[in-house]
């Protein structure tokens, strides 16, 4: 079974028509939104304009909203915190997944050291839920408000997300006599502008752009990420991962090729695919 995911921080805006265009274009199965102000009823009417494919999966915390083309009982809420939502995705055939959606505090309100502490906490919750589920078929997706190279993402006590499949395939490493499992973070590969056009148009240098007047400014950031546990590496298709720059006929970029936060959002959406999900 193939599952196509879309994640987007919509900057406190509804954007239901753009979201619906994206879902149609990319044939999305699971749609995760943060900072989305479209009431679910309105989003459903937009998503289901042509046929009633999508349903809304309510969770106690509406911080991350999940819509899907899966049957209603395929998604089970496991745990909600201020920064994360844990859901079990049961497939018609085969093994289920643990889907964790995150929206971590912004650098505007939290120092990097504090952001890392939040990562440590969520990573602990991930391991607790994996123990309960009895498997490690986990993906974490969302707006981390941190780059892939920051401590909270990289540290063995945080998400422990590494930049190559080969490293992640080792499963875990021992840190001061404790085994710490890896995640694979394919977003490392999405830093920097591509000189060739991607499948869905211009490939931007990140998912979020912020220019400030401090001496050190990265300008582009990859705050929106997907992390894959080694047990799902065979299902994850690196080629399917894209930072999306248009929705239907609407460009999500301004003329200077940075995110158009007036017409859409200051973040760009990401899409990716898991293939043969559910197989051992």
């Amino acid at each position, binding site marked *: 079974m193939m599952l196509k995911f879309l994640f987007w921080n919509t900057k406190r805006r509804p954007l239901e028509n753009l979201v619906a265009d994206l879902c149609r274009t990319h044939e999305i199965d699971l749609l995760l939104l943060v900072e989305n102000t479209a009431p679910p*009823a309105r989003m459903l009417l937009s998503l289901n*304009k042509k046929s009633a494919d999508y349903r809304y999966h309510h969770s106690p915390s509406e911080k991350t909203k999940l819509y899907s083309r899966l049957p*209603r009982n395929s998604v089970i809420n496991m745990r909600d915190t201020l920064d994360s939502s844990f859901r079990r995705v049961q497939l018609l055939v085969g093994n289920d997944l643990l889907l964790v959606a995150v929206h971590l505090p912004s650098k505007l309100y939290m120092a990097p050291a504090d952001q890392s502490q939040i990562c440590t906490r969520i990573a602990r919750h991930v391991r607790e839920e994996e123990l309960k589920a009895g498997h490690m078929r986990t993906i974490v997706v969302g707006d981390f408000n941190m780059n892939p190279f920051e401590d909270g993402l990289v540290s063995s006590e945080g998400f422990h997300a590494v930049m190559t499949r080969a490293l992640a395939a080792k499963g875990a490493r021992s840190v001061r006599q404790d085994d710490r499992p890896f995640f694979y973070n394919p977003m490392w590969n999405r830093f920097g502008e591509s000189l060739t056009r991607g499948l869905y148009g211009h490939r931007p240098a990140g998912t979020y752009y912020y220019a400030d007047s401090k001496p050190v400014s990265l300008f582009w950031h990859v705050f929106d990420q997907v992390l894959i546990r080694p047990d799902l590496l065979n299902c994850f298709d690196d080629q399917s991962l894209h930072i999306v720059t248009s929705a239907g006929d609407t460009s999500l970029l301004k003329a200077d090729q940075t995110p158009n936060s007036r017409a859409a959002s200051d973040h760009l959406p990401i899409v990716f695919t898991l293939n043969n999900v559910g197989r051992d």
Partner: protein
Amino acid sequence: MSSNDLWGSLPDDEAIIVPVRLLADQADLLGQKTGNLLEARVNPVSLSGTKNLAYELEIIAPVLDNYSITVMRIRHPIESYPVVVESVVGGNPMREATNEAEFSATLREILGSSEVQRIIGSLLSQSKATMRRGQDESFPR
């Protein structure tokens, strides 16, 4: 067929339209007719002290915090018919259908009843009313 196979030719299960399948078809249709603003699902119900099978039809409003209401129940022997149909929300609660055609007619009567239609209308209106909120929500970041 192997000589060890004493089961004979099994019947074609697609040819048998069991009551729960008719109910599940109607559950799917509600989602399609409302753009999934309302959904319905069929839940098995466990009955103690009997070998009968039982199910209930529940309407769910996902955007109203998954509000749900059971509108009808059925129970029947393993042979499928007769089906005892119980309307949970209307008058005339119990009736019996002895075959597929009768069961279909009973479903039409209950699902089209003023009581069920009133519930659907109310849940749809309240679901759509939520579209007016949320424009200025602030999010902790």
